[in-house]
């Protein structure tokens, strides 16, 4: 059998439609799996106007199930003559069991009555009804609403429901709407009512009425037509996947069309035009082979190509008005020096309790000065970094950024250049917010990276200092994104060391923390950043245990996290690595259990040769390891560990750590601590989980 369940709604927001469709499928799978009914496939679809579930190859009913019921004991069920008692009768009737299906069996507690009962399977109709209601009640949305008096919350008002099992209506109601067989096609003039005879004809009927149910099909159609339309002007469409997704999900039947931008209006910075095309017009940019914006764009009509010229004219008019508006703002902005706006930042709030953007600017200037010292920048670099920090937030007060907030930074860079700031300063300012999202491009210039990092560190330190907590889905100030940005930049640094903890320390001091509190807060922030690093490493496909092992290394070595993890991943199957992990775990246990206080290793207290051997092997390795850590030759370090391993094995074979003599014992513990520290320089091997072959 085929089952169709369609929820017909008012327009579902484009940005979260795909997520809803995916969740709907998961819910259907979960609920269906609770029944023992066969089906061949579950599919879900979404357009702005509808969510649909389609189950095919569904059996007519669940298989009957046999269950065994334990009844009363024999002594209670039968009298001394072996005749059934009232209790036995009651057992049969209340469970609807026939006497012939009962048997007496011996158990540990004596003889009992057992009965076999057949529970008839539910019909497909009952099951799909339960599944549908389960979906309605359990779908969650980033934002939901109520619109009628049953108390239901849903993404947008439900205006119709189709529930058809083959040709039969599955009756139920939700939020005041009853199921039926009536749905609608694309709203061309009025939405055309469609009576579905059966579930199977849904796809064809939808298609006939200009509704393409599959997102991928709509997307491909949009991409193909957008390309061919752009070719008319020797261009190609340019877009990100998420932007395309949004545009496609504003349509049931997408028809991309080429529209042009008035030449006179086109004479403004590309980024403004791009913002208007994408953000406001929900359209696609058209670029030439060098990626430069052409004075055209691709609008995507929800509907067919009938009267497309009328629609095109409308879009072109709106774009022109918007761009002229932008141009007016841009010309106005050019008249005002960024420098003169910095003071006025005292009128813009940064974070509640953390003062204004002017306060933030002042902190950034101080931090930029400190960082120049920490990173030994040249005099010119220092001047440029400090200058960029000083001007970095001024563009928030420009008209263009007020109108197009996503252009913050970018516009600052443009105005800086126009106003004769050094080339480097302009570049740094335009890069300060990168990366804007996970996977976005990183700042290209060295100083751009530094400004991006210190800006975000100030935000995080500031937010933590006023008690902002990041938890679950709560992250009101985008601190996770800021942290991710910092770690993405730091972890891609060429050098394998970046003094992030020192920068955090300075940021906290600038925020007015005393020396003592700084340590505590710093630790909290370092942990927060390590969590971000964890996310990044996991996204790159490293297993949790490898990530844990690597993250035990201090955060200042973050640039080398990925290389270290790669080396561990490569060796994880090696026999010797297994042994090293085991001995690391052993050492860790011994040290933890002993709980003793002990000082440095004293070679005079060695009594066994294997103690001495291990001691000298550690000393020799230490130098080699530190050299290779510096040069980033992590393969070589693994080799050193491999060579070291037999010495460790010998030690454990022949030396009893927990000697009776406290001095000897503590000396051996100290030796093991040295050993552990040596490994820890590279990673915490005891965190690795190695399966024995």
């Amino acid at each position: 059998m085929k089952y169709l369940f369609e929820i017909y709604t008012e327009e579902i927001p484009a940005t979260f439609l795909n997520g809803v469709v995916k969740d709907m499928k998961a819910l259907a799978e979960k609920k269906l799996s609770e029944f023992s009914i066969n089906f061949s496939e579950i599919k879900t679809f979404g357009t702005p106007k509808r969510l649909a579930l389609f189950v095919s190859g569904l059996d007519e009913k669940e298989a009957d199930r046999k269950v065994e019921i334990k009844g009363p004991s024999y002594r209670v069920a039968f009298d001394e003559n072996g005749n059934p008692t009232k209790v036995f009768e009651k057992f049969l009737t209340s469970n609807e069991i026939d006497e012939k299906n009962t048997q007496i069996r011996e158990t540990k507690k004596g003889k009992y009555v057992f009965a076999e009962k057949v529970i008839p399977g539910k019909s497909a109709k009952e099951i799909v009804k339960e599944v549908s209601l389960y979906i309605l009640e359990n779908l969650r949305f980033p934002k939901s609403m109520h619109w009628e008096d049953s108390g239901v919350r849903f993404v947008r008002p439900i205006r119709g429901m189709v529930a058809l099992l083959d040709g039969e209506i599955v009756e139920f109601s939700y939020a005041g709407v009853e199921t039926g067989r009536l749905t609608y096609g694309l709203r061309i003039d009025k939405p055309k009512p469609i009576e579905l005879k059966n579930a199977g004809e849904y796809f064809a009927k939808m298609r006939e009425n200009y509704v393409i149910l599959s997102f991928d099909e709509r997307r491909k159609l949009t991409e193909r037509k957008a390309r061919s339309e752009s070719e008319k002007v020797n261009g190609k469409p340019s877009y990100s996947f998420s932007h395309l997704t949004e545009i496609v999900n504003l349509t049931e039947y997408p028809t991309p069309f080429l529209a042009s931008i008035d030449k006179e209006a086109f004479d403004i910075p590309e980024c403004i035009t791009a913002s208007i095309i994408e953000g406001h017009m929900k359209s696609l940019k058209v670029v030439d082979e060098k990626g430069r914006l052409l004075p055209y764009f691709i609008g995507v009509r929800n509907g067919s190509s009938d009267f497309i010229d009328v629609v095109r004219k409308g879009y072109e008019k709106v774009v022109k008005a918007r761009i002229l508006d932008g141009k007016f703002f841009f010309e106005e902005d050019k008249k005002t020096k960024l420098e003169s706006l910095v003071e006025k930042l005292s009128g813009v709030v940064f974070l509640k309790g953390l003062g204004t953007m002017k306060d933030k600017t002042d902190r950034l200037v101080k931090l930029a000065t400190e960082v120049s010292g920490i990173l030994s920048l040249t005099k010119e670099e220092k001047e440029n970094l400090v200058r960029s920090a000083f001007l970095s937030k001024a563009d928030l007060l420009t008209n263009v950024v007020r109108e197009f907030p996503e252009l913050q930074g970018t516009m600052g860079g443009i105005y800086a250049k126009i106003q004769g700031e050094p080339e480097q300063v302009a570049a740094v300012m335009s890069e300060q917010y990168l990366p804007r999202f996970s996977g976005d491009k990183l700042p290209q210039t060295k100083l751009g990276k530094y400004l991006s990092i210190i800006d975000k560190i100030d935000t995080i330190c500031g937010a933590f200092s006023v008690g902002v907590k990041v938890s679950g889905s709560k992250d009101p100030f985008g601190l996770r994104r800021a942290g991710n940005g910092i770690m993405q930049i730091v972890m891609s640094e060429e050098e394998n060391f970046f003094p992030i903890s020192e920068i955090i320390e300075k940021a906290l001091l600038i925020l007015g923390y005393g020396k003592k509190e700084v340590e505590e807060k710093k630790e909290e922030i370092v942990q927060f950043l390590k969590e971000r690093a964890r996310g990044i490493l996991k996204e790159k496909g490293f297993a949790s245990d490898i990530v844990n092992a690597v993250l035990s290394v201090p955060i200042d070595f973050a640039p080398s996290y990925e290389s270290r993890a790669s080396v561990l991943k490569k060796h994880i199957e090696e026999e010797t690595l297994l042994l090293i992990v085991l001995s690391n775990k052993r050492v860790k246990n011994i040290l933890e259990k002993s709980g003793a206080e002990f000082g440095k290793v004293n070679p005079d207290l060695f009594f066994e040769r294997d103690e001495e051997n291990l001691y000298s092997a550690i000393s020799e390795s230490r130098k080699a390891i530190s050299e290779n850590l510096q040069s980033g030759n992590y393969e070589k370090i693994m080799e050193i560990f491999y060579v070291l391993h037999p010495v460790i094995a010998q030690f454990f074979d022949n030396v009893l750590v927990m000697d009776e003599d406290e001095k000897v014992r503590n000396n051996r513990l100290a030796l093991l601590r040295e050993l552990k520290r040596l490994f820890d320089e590279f990673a915490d091997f005891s965190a690795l989980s190695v399966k024995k072959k």
Partner: protein
Amino acid sequence: MNFQEMIFKLETFWKRQGCVILPPFDEQVGAGTLSPYTFLKVLGKKEWAVAYVQPSRRPADGRYGENPNRLYMHHQFQVIIKPPPFDIQEMYLNSLRALGLKLARHEVKFIEDNWETAVLGAQGIGWEVRLDGLEITQFTYFQQAAGIELNPVSVEITYGLERLAMFIQEKESVFDIQWNEKYTYGDLRKEVEREECIYAFDESDPKKLFALFDIYESEAVRLLSKDLLMPGYQYLLKCSHTFNLLDARGAISIAERVQLITRMRHLAELAANIVLKSEEKDEVSV
């Protein structure tokens, strides 16, 4: 179709849907939502259906009558229905048809757009309606007012009359709209726009405006605490417009902004409480 004809058509259309047609509320407001016909009526359980033109003053948007798309004062056509009819979306599209639009020739898109008004503690979920890319209407289901979760909810439909007229009459400038056969929008409004902007941006006296805000606020508190709803609420509206004037003048610092909004929000809550209280009384007496 000229501007006034459009208004007549919309009024006639919504009259037929059972809306009471009211003249614009005679206080300066920034949006139709602030009108007592909306804010005070979406509270509570009583049914309500209204449509009215609302001249809306947003001083900061003014451009001395020199920008073809931006105005100090524009006209909204506001519809409020509580509870929302089941086919409200189709009803709205019918109103566009009543304006002579052949929808099959155009594209109508509903794009997610939710709003919040801090001053009123109001929040709505809905869309901006785009006609061939042009935003012509805000279509919203009120979820909260005065910080109170609404039940039943109301639907709020706000048409931007100038935008719609420019679209229907195919004009590039708002001032070229035909108001009737004889007058253009510019004939009737341009000089006023200029004067209002000169006042808002150059001539207004922030000191006096701050003083007025204080006076209006204290009157609002005094009247609302005596359960004099409408007189008190009108003083809240005066506060709100005064705030907008100060804002356009760039006279409000951040600390002040937060504070002034909180003060107005307090007044809105006082007014909302009176509405809810009187409804409770009605229920008891029934």
